[in-house]
Structures are given as C-alpha cells and as structure tokens.
C-alpha cells in the first residue's frame, strides 16, 4: 500500500494531486474510474493552441465508497491547465451528475480550478451551465452534492458558481472561493481596487476562513486529506431535499449578509462586526483555536 492510499497517513490536500486526493478520501481500494486516462479522451481544442493535452483532461471521475456508502466522485487536477473547465473536462462532470440522478447516489466534487478554460471558453462556459442544472436536478431528487475546496488553484470563476450550487461545502484555509480572481480584478479595475500581489489581502478576502465566517462554507478543516475525509463522512449523513423553502431561507441569509456587512471595506471589518476577538489575528490562528473563535460566525444552516 502506498502512502497515498492509506487513509491514516498525513497528506496535504493542497499539495496532493487529484488522484492522491481521491485515494485518501474513499475507502481503500474502492474507487473505480469512468473514462480513465487509458481511453485517452483528450481535449480536441488544445492542439489548436499548440498546448499539451492530458489523457484525463484534468479531471478524474468515478465511483467508490466512503465509510461504506456508495458515492460518485470527481476530482479536478489543478496542475493541468489550472484545473480549468473545457469541453471534455466539463462533460465528464455533467455525465457524473446526471448519473447521480438516475442512481440516487450522492456526489463529492473535489474542486481545484481557475474557472473556464479560455482556449475552449464557449464549451467551458456551457459546461458550467449544464453542470449547475444537473446539480439542481440531483438535489431536487434528494441527492447531496458536496464540494471540497482546498487545492492549489482554489475555486474560481465558473467553478465558484458550481460550488454555490452544492448542498454543502467543506473548506480549508487554502480554499479560496471567488468569481473574479485577484489578477482579473486588478487588470479590469486597477491596483487601487485590488492588489493581486498582496497575498494577505487575497487570503482574507477569498480564503477559507473568511468564507466559513460569513457562511459561504459549512465546514472548516485542516489542510489534511484525513480531515477532509472525516468532514465528508459527516456531510454525507445529512440529507435534505432542495426546494422553495431552502431557496427562501438562502434569500433571507444573503439579504442579511448585505445588511450586516454591505458597507465593510475589508474582511477584518466584517470579523469585527461578527464580534471576533482580535480580528486582525484571525489569519494566524491554528484550526482548533480558529474554530473556537468562530462561534459567532454567520452559519448558513444548510440554506444553500
């Protein structure tokens, strides 16, 4: 057994590859892949740009078991094209979600993405729309779709909209969630609006701690594969059919967020309003101390 297949060996989620993450997440030996690299279903578009292809197009999908229960799993590889959604990459996830609806199986999506792959932007954009639609259909059928976010590429662009469609989100501090990336904001609006090289600003505006504190994510874990696995087991036990009541509760929650924090200039101001002790110190806190300090956070209470 290699280190990556043992659930009890320390593995940084941030550093791990998509395949290592799946191995560490599911019960040992239970994963079987759909449309694996041996089928060489590569992007038909990257060669137009003289870019290298990858045999799995940067996403691994399949089925496995987590703590004994059957799940469908998708993991993006942030190290290939920034984990971006292209035609094949996106269609693999769309297919998996459509299958979830038929099979009545829960889905885990391991996000690691910069968003839509620009070299196939139209196909990638449509894939995002198709995936969101498939998630909504699955959730209406009572299926949980759980997002895990803590990879190198974060969860940006269209990926962040898919995340916003999931029933529950598990994040680590490294799990940045944002529609426009720091560079995109800076390019469009200037360095006064957003200095993309200010890493501290990026982390506190888009990082996992801030998202957890405002209710943008439901569970906060260490950058450890075993911690993600435990949180996933926990999240899989929860089931709630998505309907108008949930949507109304989310409307209320998001309206309240604008009322409470709409005038804040910086994440620290929001943390101040939340009543956190020494808000400027939040980024430095280790997970256990942070979770204790986060008692007054805005909890989404599964209104998503």
């Amino acid at each position, binding site marked *: 057994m290699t280190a990556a297949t043992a659930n009890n060996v320390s593995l940084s989620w941030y550093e791990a590859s998509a395949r290592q993450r799946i191995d560490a997440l599911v019960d040992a030996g239970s994963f079987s892949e*759909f*449309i694996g690299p041996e089928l060489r279903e590569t992007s*038909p*578009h990257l060669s*137009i*740009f003289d870019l290298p292809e990858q045999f799995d197009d940067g996403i691994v*999908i399949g*089925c496995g078991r987590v703590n004994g229960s*059957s799940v469908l799993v998708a993991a993006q590889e942030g190290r290939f094209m920034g984990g971006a959604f292209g*035609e094949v990459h996106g*269609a*693999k996830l*769309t*297919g*998996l979600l*459509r*299958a979830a609806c*038929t*099979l009545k*199986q829960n889905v885990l999506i391991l996000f690691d993405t910069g968003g839509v792959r*620009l*070299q*196939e*932007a*139209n*196909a990638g*954009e*449509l894939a995002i*729309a*198709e995936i*969101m639609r498939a998630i909504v*259909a699955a959730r*209406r059928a009572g299926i949980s779709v759980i997002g895990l976010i803590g990879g190198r590429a974060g969860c940006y*662009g*269209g990926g*962040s*909209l*898919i*995340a*916003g*469609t999931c029933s529950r989100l598990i994040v680590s501090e490294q799990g940045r*969630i*944002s*529609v*426009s990336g720091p560079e*995109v*904001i800076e390019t469009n609006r200037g360095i006064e*609006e957003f200095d993309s090289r200010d890493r501290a600003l990026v982390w506190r*505006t888009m990082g996992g701690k801030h998202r957890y504190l*405002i209710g943008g994510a439901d569970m906060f874990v260490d950058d450890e594969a075993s911690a993600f696995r435990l949180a996933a087991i926990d999240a899989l036990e929860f089931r709630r059919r*998505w309907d*108008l009541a949930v*949507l109304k509760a*989310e*409307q209320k929650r*998001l*309206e309240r*967020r*604008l009322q409470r*924090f709409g005038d804040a200039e910086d994440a620290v101001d929001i943390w101040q309003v939340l009543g956190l002790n020494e808000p400027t110190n939040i980024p430095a806190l280790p997970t256990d101390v942070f979770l204790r300090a986060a008692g007054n956070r805005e909890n989404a209470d599964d209104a998503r």
Partner: protein
Amino acid sequence: MTLDDILAGLFPNGSKIEVIGAMIAGKATMADGKPIHVLGIIQGQNLGVDEAIVLAGHVIEIIGSHDRAPILVLVDSASQRMSRRDELLGLNEYLSHLAKSLLLAEAEGHRTVGLLYGGSAAGAFIATALAAGTLVALPGAHPAVMDLPSMARVTKLPIEVLKAKAEATPVFAPGLDNMVRTGGIQIIWDETAPLAPQLAAVLERPAGRDDRDRLGAERGGRRKAVDIADRVVAMATSSSRELRHG
C-alpha cells in the same frame, strides 16, 4: 433593437414593467391573452451582489405565487461586477442563488425563456441567460466569456493569431454565432418579423431536458461533450449494477 421596441413587439396587448436601476421587473400579456412575468438586467450593466439578490427575490416571489406563468428574462449586461466588495461579500453565492431561483422556477412549472438582446459575459451570463430553460437571441447580441484582447493577454498570443484561430473553430471566440453553434443559444429570432409569434413558438416547444450538448454536436460546434456525458452515465449505471450483483 431597443428594449422599448422589443417589449412593444413582444407584447402588443400591453405590459407593466418597471425599471429599477440596471434591472426591469413586471408582467405582460401575451398575444393569446395569457400572462407572462418579465425580468431583466439591462443597459449593458454589471451583475453584482446587489442586483442578483433583487432579481432572485422577484423570481422567488413568482414561484410563491404558484401561477405557473412563464418567465421571460431579458439580458443586456456586462460581466459580473469585478470588485473587491462583491467578492468580499461572496458574489459566487449571489450569482448561484439567482441561477438556482430560475432553475427552481422551471422545475416548479414556470417556463423560463432567456432573451439575449445585447451583451453578456462570464458569471453574469451563467447566472441569467444560461440558467433559463430556453435561450434565444436577437441579431446583434454579443455573448462572451472574455473579450479577445483580454484573452490575448491571458493566453499570451497576439490578437491577430487569436482572430485567425477563431476562424477555424467556434469553441473559444466571443460572438453570437459561436454560442449558437456550441448549442448554448437555441435560435436567433428574426427581427424583421413580429416577435410575439416567435415567443409563442418557443413556449410551444416541450420543456425540461437540457439538450444544449446535443444541439452543440448536431451543429458541429461542440462535438464531444454529449458523447462523453452519455458514456459516463452508461458506465456509472453498469458499474453500479455490477456492484449490486457482484
């Protein structure tokens, strides 16, 4: 066509639609006398947290009314608002929430039709037009994921090279025809013909299935997506059957 021309053409029997900043909301009467809800983001503006929450609120109200009347979403927007404030407040949740509200409306029996009559890009496009059950466009509409100059910057390719490549494939460059060929837009309306019957024709088509990947394959703009998705469903189904019997 201007928004007023479009509304007059669609609803000769009259409409009561309010303009609220960058948005419109209201109700109209179709040619057959039946009611239709009208929402939209207009004047090429950005879609940020403040706009998305208002639009979603309207959709939720419509679902709550249980009238099952169709919803027309008019779109002439820019991209999502690219700002520090919007991202600080969790823009992805607001855009997803708006998309989900439109998807739920459809699932609850409201036909949802997007009408792209101007621009739209990236997150704003996904949260509005692409969340409708059927998306149609008027000539001159210009959807984009990213404009070519920005794309040139990100891909580090000269814009002339990108333009040449765009001739060869509809898959990446902005534009209405490319979005039609990849299956995202069902049909481009004829602006020289009356609009009301064209809307009626869209509403007569059966609803429900997401056939955009199939359309993309038929039109040659997205040849692989539907095949891949179908094969994944087949593999997942047979592997689940094996597990049960094995």
